C-alpha cells in the first residue's frame, strides 16, 4: 500500500530541518511567466527551492529530477488572497474588536482541503480570520506544503503580517442583533473602528508616560492595543470584508484620519462603483468572479467587477473564500475574459502576481522569475481553457501534488475513532453538517473539518 511509504516519508520530513526544499528541472513546457511573457519549449530549473534558470535546453545537475512538460503549460503556483483552509479556528466571534487573536496559532497542516487546493494548482493561500467582528484577528499566509507534520512549516516564512476587518451585515448581526452592543448599524460600524484606533493612541501615550516616569501607575498590557498600534505603524496589511460602496469609502476615510494606507478590500462587490477612489487610495481589491445575492447587502453586483477594477488601475485579484472554489481558481479567472474581455495575462494576474502583491509577497511568488520561490503548477492545457487539468504542483522545488502517482486517500491524520460508512451514506445528512458548521463558525468560532460548503463571506 502506497500510503505506508507516504507516512514514513512524512515522518522523515518532520525530523529534517524546517522548510525542506527540493530541486527539479521542468523540461520543454510552455512557460507562462506572468511578468515576462509566454515562452514556448522552455525549461525551468529549480534548485534548492528557488528558480535558478528559465531558458531553452537547460541541463540538470547531478541527482536533479526531470519532469517532461512537453505539450503542457507551466505557470507560477496560484495564490489565493482569501481562504480559510488549513486552520482549525476561523472566528473569535465574542467581541467586535479581536485584533489580538491570530489564525496562525491554529494552523492545521493535516486539513485535506490543503491537498485539494494543491490539486487545483494553488500553492499559497491567505488563511483569514472570519468576518464576525469589525476588527477580526490577524491572518496567516500559508504555503501549501501538504505532507509536513509541523504546523509551523506550513507558514510562509517572512510573509508580512495581515489582519481581517469586516464591514456590514456580519458584524452587525453577530454583535448588534445577538448581543445588542455596538455595532448595530453601519453608523455604529464606523464608530467601532474610530474608537479602536483612538483607544490604541491613548494606550500608546499611557505606556510612553509610564516609561518616562510621568505616569506613576502601571498601565495594563493589551495585545489588542499593541496590534492596533502596529496597524497604525504600517506593520500590518488590512484585508477588509466589504460589499457596499458607501462603507468602502467610509473605511478609507477612517484610515486616512489615522494615517493607515495598507489595505486590500475583500469581496468588494460594489467596488466597480468606487474603482477610481480605490485606485487613488492605493487599495487592493480581491473579488469573486461571479458570486452574489447570498445576502441583502450583496445584490448590487456584476461579473464585470474584476475587469472594471483592473481597467481602473486597481490591483485586483480573484479569491475563493471556499475550499471548493480554491480548486479551480483558473476557471474563475477565465470568466473575466467573457465578462470584460481581459487578456490572458490580465486574467492570470488576478490569481498570481496581484494576490501576491495584496499579501506583500510579490518578491517571492506570483510569477516565474529567476530568484523567486520554486512554486509551479503544470497544466495539461492552457490554464484558462476549460479543458485544463492540473498535472503537478510544486512548492519550493518539491512535488507536492502529482495526478499520476499519488493514491486517492492522502489524509495524514486518521481519526482512530471515526465511524466509517460508504460514500453514498456520507452524502446523506450532509446538509445538516453544513448548517452546523455555518452556525458554529458564525456564532462560536470553531471550524469543523467539512468546510467545503461553508460560505462565510
Amino acid at each position, binding site marked *: *500500500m502506497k*500510503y505506508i511509504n507516504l507516512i514514513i516519508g512524512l*515522518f522523515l520530513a*518532520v*525530523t529534517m530541518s524546517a522548510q525542506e526544499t527540493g530541486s527539479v528541472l521542468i523540461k520543454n513546457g510552455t512557460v507562462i511567466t506572468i511578468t515576462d511573457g509566454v515562452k514556448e519549449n522552455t525549461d525551468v530549473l529549480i534548485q534548492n527551492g528557488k528558480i535558478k534558470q528559465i531558458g531553452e535546453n537547460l541541463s540538470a545537475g547531478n541527482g536533479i529530477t526531470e519532469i517532461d512538460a512537453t505539450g503542457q503549460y507551466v505557470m507560477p503556483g496560484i495564490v489565493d488572497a482569501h481562504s480559510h483552509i488549513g486552520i*482549525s*479556528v476561523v*472566528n*473569535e*466571534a*465574542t*467581541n*467586535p*474588536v*479581536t485584533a*489580538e*487573536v*491570530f*489564525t496562525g*496559532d*491554529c494552523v*492545521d497542516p*493535516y486539513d485535506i482541503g490543503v491537498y485539494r487546493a494543491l490539486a487545483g494548482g494553488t500553492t499559497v493561500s491567505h488563511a483569514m*480570520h472570519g468576518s464576525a467582528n469589525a476588527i477580526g*484577528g490577524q491572518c496567516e499566509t500559508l504555503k501549501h506544503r501538504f505532507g509536513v*507534520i*509541523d*504546523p*509551523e512549516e506550513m507558514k510562509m516564512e517572512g510573509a508580512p503580517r495581515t489582519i481581517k476587518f469586516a464591514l456590514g451585515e456580519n458584524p452587525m448581526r453577530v454583535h448588534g442583533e445577538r*448581543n445588542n*452592543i455596538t455595532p448595530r448599524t453601519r453608523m455604529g460600524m464606523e464608530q467601532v473602528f474610530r474608537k479602536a484606533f483612538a483607544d490604541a493612541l491613548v494606550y500608546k501615550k499611557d505606556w510612553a508616560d509610564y516609561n518616562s516616569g510621568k505616569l*506613576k*501607575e*502601571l498601565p*495594563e*498590557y*493589551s*495585545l*489588542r492595543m499593541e496590534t492596533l498600534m502596529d496597524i497604525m505603524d504600517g506593520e500590518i496589511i488590512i484585508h477588509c470584508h466589504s460589499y457596499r460602496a458607501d462603507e468602502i469609502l467610509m473605511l478609507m476615510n477612517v484610515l486616512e484620519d489615522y494615517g493607515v494606507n495598507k489595505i486590500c478590500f475583500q469581496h468588494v462587490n460594489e467596488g466597480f462603483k468606487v474603482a477610481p477612489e480605490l485606485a487613488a487610495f492605493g487599495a487592493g481589491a480581491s473579488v469573486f468572479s461571479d458570486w452574489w445575492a447570498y445576502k441583502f447587502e450583496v445584490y448590487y453586483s456584476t461579473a464585470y467587477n474584476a475587469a472594471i477594477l483592473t481597467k481602473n488601475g486597481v490591483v485586483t485579484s480573484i479569491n475563493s473564500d471556499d475550499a471548493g472554489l480554491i480548486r479551480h481558481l483558473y476557471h474563475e479567472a477565465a470568466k473575466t475574459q467573457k465578462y470584460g474581455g481581459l487578456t490572458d495575462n490580465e486574467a492570470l494576474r488576478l490569481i498570481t502576481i496581484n494576490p501576491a502583491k495584496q499579501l506583500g509577497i510579490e518578491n517571492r511568488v506570483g510569477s516565474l522569475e529567476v530568484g523567486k520561490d520554486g512554486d509551479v503548477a503544470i497544466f495539461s492545457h492552457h490554464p484558462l481553457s476549460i479543458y485544463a487539468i492540473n498535472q503537478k504542483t510544486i512548492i519550493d522545488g518539491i512535488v507536492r501534488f502529482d495526478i499520476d502517482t499519488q493514491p*486517492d*486517500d492522502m*489524509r495524514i*491524520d*486518521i*481519526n*482512530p*475513532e*471515526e465511524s*466509517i*460508512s*460508504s*460514500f*453514498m451514506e456520507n452524502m446523506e445528512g450532509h446538509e445538516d453538517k453544513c448548517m452546523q458548521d455555518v452556525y458554529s463558525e458564525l*456564532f*462560536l*468560532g*470553531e471550524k469543523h473539518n467539512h468546510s467545503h460548503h461553508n460560505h462565510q463571506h
Partner: protein
Amino acid sequence: MINKRNALQGLFMVILTLITGWTTPLKAQNSNEPKEVTATYLLQNAHIIAKPGQSSFGSVLVRDGLIEQVGPNLRAPYDAQIIDMDSMYIYAGFIDALSHVGLKKKEKEGRPDVKDPGNPPNNVAGITPEHSVYDDYAPSEGSVKKLREQGYGIAHIVPQGRMLPGMGAIFSMAEGDPSSLVIKKEASMFSQLKSANRVAPGTTIGVLAKYRDIYRNAEATGKYNAKYNMNPAGMRRAQPEPAIEAFIPVVNKQMPVYFIAKSALDVSRVISLQKELGFNLVLADVEQGWPMASKITAGRYPVLLSMDLPDPIKEDKKEKKDESKMTEEEKTKAAEEKAKEEAKKKKEEAKLSMLEKANKKAKMEREERKKKSIKEYESQAAMMEKKGIKFAFTGVSTKPGDIKKNLKRMIDAGLSESTALAALTTNAADQLGISKIAGTIEKGKLANLVVTDKPYFEEKSMIRYVFVDGQMSEMKKKEEKKGKLEKGASTALAGEWKYSIEIPGQTQSGTIKITPDGDYLLVEVDSSDEPGDYEEGTSVNFKDDKLSFEMSVDNDGFQMDLTWDLDIEDNTMKGMVKAGQFGSFPVEATRTPE
C-alpha cells in the same frame, strides 16, 4: 475518551430523595469503620519489585506509614501484623502525575448570563489561576477509592475548568482530612486550550491570545512589585489583581505549567506558546505526541502520556477451533463450510454495481487505515521509549477500570514493562519532585505499596492489597468477586439485560451485562443516566436459576450498598434490590435479543 463518573449515582439520588427530612449529610462511610489494630505490618515471602527492573524475594516491614525495612529475612516485631504474601508481588504505590480525582462533579453550565460576551468576568471566562485545588479536594469522593484500588498512593490533582482553572496540589490517596494528606500545596499551574462557553475567549485562538495577555501583565506586575519592594518611595502600590498576581510565579519559573495537550496539533501549539513566553512547561495528557517527538526532544519537555486509548476494533467473535485438534471429519466439514461461505460471498459480490464495488473497496481501505491509526496510538509509549523521551502516565482522562487494560495494550505494542512501571512510579515521582519519599520500595519512603497475585502486567493478575501511607486495603479475591460458573450458566445468563427498578414515583432503568469469564461470571450494571459506565458486581452467586450479587454505589462521597436478588426464567429476571437501609425495591429485567 471521556472520564465518566460513577454509574448508578442517579439511582442513588432518586432513593435519597425518598428519605424525607434528610437534611444533614451522611457521614462518609470510612469514619464509621473501626480504627486499625496496628500500624505495623510485615509482608512476608514476596517478590519485591523495589524499582523498575529490580526484583528480589523477601519481606517489607511497614510501620506508622513508612517503610521501615526491606530485606530477605526480616523478623516480625511484637506489634506487627504478619501477612504472608505467599509469593505475591509487591510494587511501589503508583503515582498519578495529573488527575481530577476527589473533585466533585462540575454542574452542567448553562449559557452564561453575561451582557458583553467580549468582556466576561474572569470566573466565567475560565481564568482563575489564583484558585487552589487544595480547597476542592474531597478524600471521601468515590473516585479516590476507585483510583486507590487500582494501586495509586499519590496523585497530583489539578482543578477542573477551562483555560486556567487554578493551581494543582499533590495529595496522598489515603483516608483522612485533606490537611493531613497534602504533600505539596500549590505545586503547579494547570492550563488547557479550552475556550469559554460563548464568551471570550471563545476559541483556541482566543485562549492563546488571552494567555499572552495574562503572561505579559504578570511579567510587568512582577517587575513593578520587585521595584516597589526595593524602594517604594515615589511609587504607587500596585492594585491587586488576584489572577495576575497568582501567575507571577509562572513567569518567574518558580511554578511549572501543566498544560493539557492531547493531539499532535495541540502539542505543537502549546510548545510554540512556551517558546514565545518561556515558562516551565509539562506536556500533559498527551494522546498523540509521536508526530511532535522531535520538537519534544529538542525542547526537553517533560511529558505525561495519557493512559486513554481509542476503542479497539471489535474482532469477529466467531469461535475458531484449533485445526490441529480437529478430527479428520471435522476438518472436512470445516473446509466444506469455508468453501460454501466463499461461494456465497462471490455470488453476492457479482451482484454489486460498479459504484457499490468502489464504495466497498474504499470502505475497506478506510478501515485498514483506521486500524493502523489505532495501532499508532497504542504504540505511542513504546515509540517515546525508543526515542529516549522520559515520560510518566496520567489518568486524568482515563477511567480507572481501563488503566490496566490499556497499559497491557501499550505493552503488546512494544512498550517495555520496566518503562511502563517507571511511568507509573519513579518517573512520576521525579516529575513531581517527590522521589525522596515515593516511587520505590526503600527504607524511609512512604509505605505506598501495591500487592498483586501475579506480576502486575500479566493479563490475569489481580491487585490484592494496596497500602497508602501504611493504611491497608484488602481487595477481594477473584473467586470471591465473581460467581463460579455452573455448566450451562453461560447460555442461561450471558448477554445484556434491560432492567427497571420500581421506586415509588420513579422508575430507574439501565443495563445489566453478564459475561462468562473463564470459570466465573462477570456482572456489570449501568444506569440510563450514564449509559456504558458500568459498575462491577461482587459476591456474584448463581444457583438454581437464582442470581445474586452486590455492588457499592456512591454519590459525592455517600456510599450505599445494593444487593440484587433475581429469579431467572428464560429471558426475564424478576426480584428485589436492597438499597442499604432505605429498603428493598422490585426489579425486572429482560434480555436484549442478540
